[in-house]
Structures are given as structure tokens and as C-alpha cells.
């Protein structure tokens, strides 16, 4: 059942990718209306696959690379859908759908059979920490893509090249606002994710802090995001803010993906 749902998810990510790309290049408005619907179906089937897996193992399924990537892809796509629904930013869909497709393909590669949860992870802090951390990452992912599009759009406008896909892009102001709003939501989530992780570590291993790659990189990301938010409140905006957002997310991504491979309690099999 889980594999059937994941396969359906893959197909719908692909279809929504085609829909969003057609919406960008075709004058027909039909594609712009259909594509979010297809992404919604992909999200629904993906959520179903995660739920089936979680029910079968009896805990929230995020404890190994396969489950973590799958959960991150799902929560990010859902968040993008929410932004799309509120702001009609077709171009964001054109970015998230193909990424959803590629990550879901990766999920098939990383797939492992369900197994019992190690004793250290059997805690009610698991869903709290994981949900906060993943939600924070997904919100920063929105800020990252908004910044990426900002830098691209700004470069084209400065260079007086305004044809092609540029006319489908949101205004610089919209992207800058989305960036700031995402940072404002993401930072408290990241903070709470780190704090809940520390509390859980205290319960599981007797220490609030462990000097391992994952927590260290998370702390570095937190400091960078704190720096960015601080300077934004002093008038940093535009390209400078967008560039730092991209850098911050790159560090966050290293802490998320790299830590899966590096030694430590977050590495490989979570715990």
C-alpha cells in the first residue's frame, strides 16, 4: 500500500511539474488552474504513504534517511501549496513540483523496510522535535526559493533583459516580503526545534547538548538566521538579504542532509 501510494505520488509530482511548466510558457490559463490541483493530489497521496508507514511502525516515520527525506518533501510541498493558495505564485509551483518529483525518486532509492524504534528514541519528544524542525526547514525552503527567484529577477531587470519567463515571475517586492515573512516564521520554529531537541537529548542521553555535527551545524544555521533577521529589521532588503538567505539555507541543508551521513546520533539510522 505504501509503495502504491508513493508511486502515485511520483506520477502526480511529474504531472504537476508538466502543468506548472506549461503554465509558465503558455498563454492558456487552464494549466495554471490544473497544476496546483495535481500538486494537491501528490501531497495527499504522499501524506497517505507517510501515514501508512507511521501506523505500521507505531511512531512518526522520520527515523532514517528514507523516512526523513520523504517527510521533508511532503511537508515542503504542503507548505508551498499553502503559499500558492494565498499568493497565486505559479512560479513557486514550477520550482517545487520538479524538486518534489526528484526527491520522491530519491525516496525510492533510499527505501528501507520498517523496523522497531531504538529505546533511546521512544519518547513523546520525538514527534514534537521532528515536526518543529521539519516545519522550520520547510519554511526556510520557501524563503530560499523566494530569494533564488529574487536574485534571478533582479539580475535580469538590472541587465534590461525582461523577456521570456520573467513576465511570469512575481514582483521583487512580493518576493522580498515572502522572504521576510518566511524568515519570521522559520526562525521561531528552528529555535523551538533546537530547544525541544535539547530537552529530548537530556531525557534520552542525560545531556542537553552533544557536540556532534548535526547539532553544531544547526546552531551555526541558527546564528546565521538570527544575524539575517537582525539586519533585516535595520533595513537590509533586496539582493543582500536574498543572498544571505541562500547562504543560510545552504548551511541548513548541509546540517540536514550531511548529518544523515556523518557519524553521531543523528547519522544513518536516527538514534
Amino acid at each position, binding site marked *: 500500500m505504501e509503495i502504491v501510494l508513493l508511486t502515485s505520488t511520483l506520477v502526480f509530482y511529474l504531472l504537476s511539474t508538466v502543468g506548472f511548466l506549461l503554465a509558465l510558457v503558455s*498563454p*492558456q*490559463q487552464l494549466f495554471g488552474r490544473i497544476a496546483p490541483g495535481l500538486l494537491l493530489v501528490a501531497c495527499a497521496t504522499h501524506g497517505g504513504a507517510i501515514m501508512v508507514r507511521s501506523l505500521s511502525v507505531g511512531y512518526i516515520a522520520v527515523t532514517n534517511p528514507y523516512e526523513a527525506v520523504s517527510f521533508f518533501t511532503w511537508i515542503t510541498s504542503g507548505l508551498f501549496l499553502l503559499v500558492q493558495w494565498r499568493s497565486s505564485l505559479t512560479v513557486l509551483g514550477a520550482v517545487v513540483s520538479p524538486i518534489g518529483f526528484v526527491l520522491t525518486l530519491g525516496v525510492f532509492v533510499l527505501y528501507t523496510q520498517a523496523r522497531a524504534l531504538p529505546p533511546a528514541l521512544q519518547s513523546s519528544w520525538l514527534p514534537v522535535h521532528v515536526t518543529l524542525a521539519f516545519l522550520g526547514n520547510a519554511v526556510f525552503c520557501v524563503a530560499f526559493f523566494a530569494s533564488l527567484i529574487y536574485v534571478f*529577477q533582479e539580475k535580469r*531587470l*538590472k541587465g*534590461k533583459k*525582461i*523577456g521570456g519567463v*520573467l*513576465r511570469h*515571475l512575481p*514582483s*521583487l*517586492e*512580493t518576493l522580498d*516580503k515572502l522572504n521576510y515573512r518566511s524568515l519570521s516564521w522559520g526562525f521561531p520554529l528552528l529555535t523551538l526545534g533546537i530547544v525541544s531537541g535539547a530537552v529530548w537529548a537530556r531525557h534520552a542521553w542525560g545531556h542537553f547538548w552533544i557536540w556532534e555535527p548535526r547539532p553544531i551545524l544547526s546552531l551555526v544555521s541558527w546564528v546565521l538566521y538570527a544575524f539575517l533577521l537582525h539586519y533585516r529589521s535595520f*533595513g*537590509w*532588503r*533586496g*539582493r*543582500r538579504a536574498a543572498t544571505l538567505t541562500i547562504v543560510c539555507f545552504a548551511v541548513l541543508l548541509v546540517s540536514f542532509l550531511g548529518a544523515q551521513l556523518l557519524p553521531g546520533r543523528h547519522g544513518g539510522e536516527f538514534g
Partner: protein
Amino acid sequence: MAKPDPSLMVVGLNHHTTPVEVREKLAFSDGMLHHALPRLVEAPGIQEGAIISTCNRVEVVTWTHDPPQASRHIKTFLAQEQGLPLRLFEAHLYTHTDREAVRHVFRVASSLDSLVVGEPQILGQIKDAYSASASLGTLGTVLHRWFHKAFSVAKRVRSETAIAAKPVSVSSVAVELACRIFDQLTDKTAMVIGVGEMSQQAIRQLRARAIGTLLITNRTFQRAVELASTCAGTVVPFEQFPRQLHLADVVIGSAGGSAYHLTPERVHEALQERKRRPMFLIDLGVPRNFDPRLNDLENVFVYDIDDLEQIVADHKGERELEARKAEAIVSQEVEAFWQWYASRDISPTIVALRQKAEAVRQREVEKTLAGLKDCSPETRRAIEGLSASLMNKLLHPPIGYLKHRTRNGNAEDGATSVTAVRQMFGLDDDQD
């Protein structure tokens, strides 16, 4: 002498064929149309009529049973209604009939025949012309259908091509660019330096996008006051505008002078004061008003007249490409409309042919069955089936011939075929 065939017809002149001094003399006002339209369809040979009158064209659209007479009448009608000698404009007139007339109206409605291809106003003007004629009762089935089809073709062209997606005037491109930078203009401030024609065009575009605040400055204070009074702007004395520069999200410069009105140092100060919120500087002046080095500043976007004209040229080129796609759509739709138009003449003939054949079949079957004693129900059904099959097979070629001739030939072919079939099968005879 043979009676002429009915035709769809357009007689008129437009900006391609006629200078403006002649076009303006032939233009119809709404009041004139009210009187002229009933007189147009009073003429012998004209069944239905409408007049399209815009600043670029005056065209009489008709369905006529006598095209040569109708054409003569329309020319005289135009001269009489406008009180002009026919020789003044006769050489500029064109006449399109049947498929070409249909194509012409579809192209006009789709803005493929406009001075600026893709401009949206023409469809509204044709809808007005249609409404005026419909309210005066000068339209019948054919013109109603023709106009409605023209509206749907125009809609299809607009939705399936990007013919009107990009602006093609300097001022509209400038405002379009502002919308790439700012979310909306309703909460933004624009400062206009200079009161020339270019500034006024830009102000009209900004007003159309509901710009929040408009500041106007000019070396001659009085001229700034005059312009501000026409567009609800606020006047800023020329000497003071640098101090208010930080208020402006959009700055439009079209003032004269040899020195730059905006330098990087001046704009840098303004940027700091406005917490680095973006500024869009549109330089419409020649020589330029703004130092081009301003584009190097972060969150500042500068476009001069050459940049804007280049974009306009690119947009026009893209419209031409889209126009080719639109022409293909028009051709498809002309054929679809023509099939309806041609088949509306053969439908009664096909019905009459079937009715006559059916009557003959039933009569002959009855005669045959009356001569057969003790005929079983199976035999009766077999005879019925045989006769119906024979009838259908025999009718297939003449009906196919009629359809083929009306769809693929001209109106004359269609009418000749209908006459031939009616005579051949005696459809107009009172008795069999």
C-alpha cells in the same frame, strides 16, 4: 438574366487604404447611425446590415441577395449620409464578399487589422456596432451569427495566443516594468520631473494603475501647477525635489538641461533615508536626466528611453509572431462559419428529398403488401427493410454531392447544385 446569388459582403475603407482626412469625414457618430442604419436596409437587395465606424475604419457589413446592386447602393448611401461627393472616397473603398468578407470581419475583431496589432479596444467598438444594429432591428439570423462568431474568434485569439500580452508604447512599458518591481502601485509614490508630452503619457499610465501619490516638479513652477491640476498631483518646487526624493518609489524624468538631475550620490542619500526600499528611475529625457551609473546602486533600477524603445520593438516583434498563430485560428474559424452558412441553404433541400423518397417508399410498399395474400409479419418486415435500405443507398450520392459542393465550392456552386437536385427529383412540383 439569372438572379444573383446571396452574399456576405463588406464595403468600407480603413487606415491601410485611406488617409485620415478622408476617414474622419466618413465617420458615423452614434446619432447618425441611429438614422442611417434603417435606411441602409431599406435598399433593395440588402437583407441585413451593420456599420462599423471607428477612428481607423468605416465599414458596412451586409447580407445581400443582390451583391452588385448592394455594392452600388452602399457607395451612394455613404456619400448621401455624409454629404460628400462619391469621387472623394470611391478610390479608397474595398469590397470583400463571402469567405473573404467573413475573414475580414474576424481579423478586424481579433485586432489583426488594427494599426497596433493586438490592441484591445477594437472588439469593444465592434460590439457597440453590433448592439446599435441589433437594437434598431437591422440584423437577421445571418449577421447575428456572423457577429457572435467574430466575438468568439476574437476571444479565442486572445486566450490561445499572447498577441496582447506585452505593451507596445514607451510609457506603458515603463509602468509595466514598475509592476515587476513593486507589488502594486496603489501605495506607492511617483515623482515626475518635467511636464513634457512623455511625462503626461506616463502620468496617464500611472493613473490607470491607480498610483498612490503623484509628485510633479518642473523648472517653470506654473507649468507644474497646470499639469498637477489635471491629474490630481502635488507640486514640488524644482529646487526642493532632491530633498523629497526619498519619498519617491518611481521617478520619471523628462526635463531638459545638460546636467544630470539625479546623481549616484544624491540617490544614495535618498536610499538610506528610505531604508533601502527599491527605486525605479525612468529616464525619458534626451539628453538623459539621470546618471546611468545609478544602475550600479543596489535596489535602484534605471531605464532610459533607448532601453524602453528596445523593449517596445521586441514586444512588437513578438506580437507579429503571435499574429501568425492568430491568422491560423481565423482561417479555421472562417471555414467553420462557412460550413454553417453554406449548409443552411441545403438543409431544406435534404429534408424535402428525404420526405419525398419516404413517401414514395411507403406508397410502393403498401401497394406490394396489398397484392400479397397471407403475408407473414417476417415477410412484411423484410420488405420494409429492403425498401428502406434501397432508399437510403439511392439518396446517399445526391446528398453527399450537395454537401460537397456547398462546403468546398463557392456560394454559386452551392446554389446551382441545390437547384439541380430540386429539379432532378421534382421537389418543387405539387405532385409526384
